């Protein structure tokens, strides 16, 4: 399997990098010059017509969409999440899609508040995103407390742990006051993320991408 990840440090491609390192899959990084407009180039649009990172080139063609890449890696390797025949697959997919289309989307609305309705309405967009983010992390926390699933656990590394870990990192670091989150409000999630960031593979990515030694639970340090 020959893999090339189109990557910029601390962008969504970092989520895929955590999974690739955890799986010890050899891969090449193609660094994307986002500020230089590389995502709009015709060459890049041939890889990903949506024009976002990450994209992962595989021997089955190019992939994009963070969660699609994570799921493809799970299915290719049989690791970091339940496979199609596992009784946990349905719940895992439900929460993977929820993370992608609800939590990740709300986080993007917080980081790019002009997107929904223009600069003039940025404050309202941030306030709406804040409410959604806290509610959605609350649903994940309640699910963890009630179900302790193997696919989002402190005892087993998983793609969802790395995905949510990077989103939480950004939600602690990036929103201007009074917005943002306190991870202590979500103790079960914090324990899962602490276990993920402490893994050898995660520490390799954190060092290489310059994320600090506690990239999920204490990203400012």
């Amino acid at each position: 399997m020959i893999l090339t990840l189109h990557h910029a440090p601390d962008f969504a491609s970092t989520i895929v990098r955590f999974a690739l390192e955890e799986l010890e899959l050899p891969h090449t990084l193609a660094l994307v010059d986002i500020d230089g407009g590389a995502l709009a180039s015709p060459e890049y649009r041939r890889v990903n017509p949506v024009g976002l990172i990450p994209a992962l080139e595989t021997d089955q063609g190019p992939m994009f969409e963070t969660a699609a890449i994570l799921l493809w890696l799970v299915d290719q390797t049989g690791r970091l999440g339940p496979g199609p025949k596992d009784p946990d697959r349905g719940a895992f997919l439900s929460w993977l899609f929820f993370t992608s289309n609800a939590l990740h989307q709300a986080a993007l609305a917080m980081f790019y508040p002009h997107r929904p309705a223009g600069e003039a309405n940025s404050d309202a967009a941030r306030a709406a995103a804040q409410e959604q983010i806290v509610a959605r992390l609350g649903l994940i926390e309640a699910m963890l407390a009630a179900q302790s699933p193997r696919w989002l656990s402190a005892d087993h590394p998983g793609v969802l742990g790395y995905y949510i870990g990077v989103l939480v990192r950004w939600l602690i670091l990036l929103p201007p006051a009074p917005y943002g989150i306190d991870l202590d409000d979500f103790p079960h999630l914090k324990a899962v993320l602490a276990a993920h960031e402490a893994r050898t593979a995660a520490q390799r990515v954190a060092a290489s991408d310059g994320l600090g030694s506690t990239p999920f639970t204490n990203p400012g340090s």
Partner: protein
Amino acid sequence: MYTLHYAPDNASLIIRLVLDGAGIPYRTHLVDRATRQQDSAAYRALNPTGLIPTLETPVGPVSETGAILLWLSDLHHLGPGPGDPERPAFLKWMFFLSNTAHSELRQIFYPHQYAPADGHHAHFEIMSTRMKRHFALLDAAARQWPKLFAPARPLGVYAIVLTRWAVLYPVNGPRWLDLADYPALEALAAAQEARVETPVVARAEGLGAHPFTRPEQPNPPEGSVL
């Protein structure tokens, strides 16, 4: 046997058309949105997000439209499975439909969740422009992968139900999507409408005679759209 928790012309419609298209037996259970049953303790126990649909299965409830489609697809072979050369395309367009096209279309329908009243017009202009770009990408993908974007199949049904809603909503806003601008999706709409299960589902949910090529406001015999 599966139980599909549904409301008429909600995202459960996507699951229903795929199940019926594949001849997979299931029961329906109406979620009465008029009495906000989606917020009841019983429904939240199945799906804590309170969103429709939920599919009850022998191994527990599955929620999120894309997750249900993918779960059904892998079990009943409705799309390329792991290892298939078309699997990457299947997965990336499934997530694009879910987290970009579907999620941003919802934002057009519910502007009050995203902007104050005097910002609704700007919100509509920005979001409808973005959605047209998303439909253009889906139209190109449907041309490139006709087997994936086929009638009755997960990606085909998902895409075509989104175009139906884009034509109809927001009810009080200007019409902003012309399906004729997207030839592959327009052909898909006609092909989905020609399938035997489409009029059966359309009658059950009050979707009219041409739910995809000439959508009209739903008039469901039971339940409430909103």
